[in-house]
């Protein structure tokens, strides 16, 4: 089991502080849900952990050992699913897979994954939102990162693929730690072991829709 600990994470855009002394940890075998209104700093938090933006302060520990943010990418500590597709749009799916997995064994694992045969001859630009997210998650799933940071894996995805993605994430829990943020809160609550909400620069633990309403992420329902 591996453990990623994030602490003292602070960041501001100009005079506006978005993250203030945030701390959390993620172990392989667990899925953490992260909620927050638009602009609350969810994507910034994920990018900070990935080490792809300069941040005011952050401390990362992997299995108790301090890690520099500049080491996260070269050491393949975390995989990242951005909101928009990261795959070259002009390529066909069958050409993308060998680009990422040069060895035959890795390619076979993707080509023979459920559902891939249906779109392997399509160009990336021609895939539906659900097919694209599912493919990207499959690719990430078979990469060696022990942790995955997923920025809106369910957004704009058709229900059939949302179910596939949830199944995939639950199966990945056996080997990876996953931090997922999405406004499709019901889907996140369904698969996550722990949930947090980012509000006024701070991270608060939440457990259900009522807690999300208490933190003004959801509208409070009248009795």
């Amino acid at each position, binding site marked *: 089991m591996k453990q990623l600990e994030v602490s003292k994470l602070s960041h501001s855009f100009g005079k506006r502080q978005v993250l203030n002394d945030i701390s959390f940890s993620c172990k392989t075998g667990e899925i953490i849900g992260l909620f927050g209104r638009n602009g609350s700093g969810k994507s910034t938090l994920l990018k900070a952990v*990935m080490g*792809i933006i300069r941040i005011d302060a952050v401390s990362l520990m992997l299995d108790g050992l301090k890690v520099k943010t*500049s080491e996260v*990418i*070269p*050491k*393949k500590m975390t*995989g*990242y*699913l*951005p909101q*928009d*597709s*990261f*795959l*070259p749009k002009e390529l066909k799916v069958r050409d993308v897979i*060998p*680009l*990422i997995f*040069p060895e035959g064994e890795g390619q076979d694992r993707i080509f023979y994954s459920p559902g891939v045969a249906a779109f392997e001859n399509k160009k990336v630009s021609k895939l539906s939102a659900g097919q694209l997210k599912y493919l990207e998650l499959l*690719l*990430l799933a078979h*990469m060696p*990162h022990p942790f995955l940071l997923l920025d809106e894996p369910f957004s704009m995805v058709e229900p059939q693929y949302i179910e596939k993605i949830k199944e995939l994430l639950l199966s990945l829990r056996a080997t990876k730690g996953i931090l997922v943020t999405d406004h499709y809160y019901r889907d996140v609550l369904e698969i996550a072991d722990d949930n947090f909400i980012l509000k006024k620069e701070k991270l608060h633990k939440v457990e259900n829709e009522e807690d999300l309403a208490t933190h003004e992420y959801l509208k409070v329902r009248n009795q």
Partner: protein
Amino acid sequence: MNQRAFWKYYRDFNFFNLIFSVISGIYFGAVSGTLIFLSFGMLIGYLGYETFRKNEYYLYYNLGFSKRFLLKKVWICNLIFVTPLLIILFLFL
């Protein structure tokens, strides 16, 4: 290191650089065009990639390439490939 992925980045990055450098070469001469390919053309390549393919950087991050590493390696490869051409141009033009 995933060489296939790196060369994909190399081609996509230099696509913008090459167009600019070839046009510059036609206008200012072959030596200038080649030198531009190694210098200002790199900036054009960077800006072109940032404008049209920015999100693909996440693919390379997931494969273990940082942006700094990619840029450094592209420049070194360009230097290795273009230096013999520059020497030939200096000798025969």
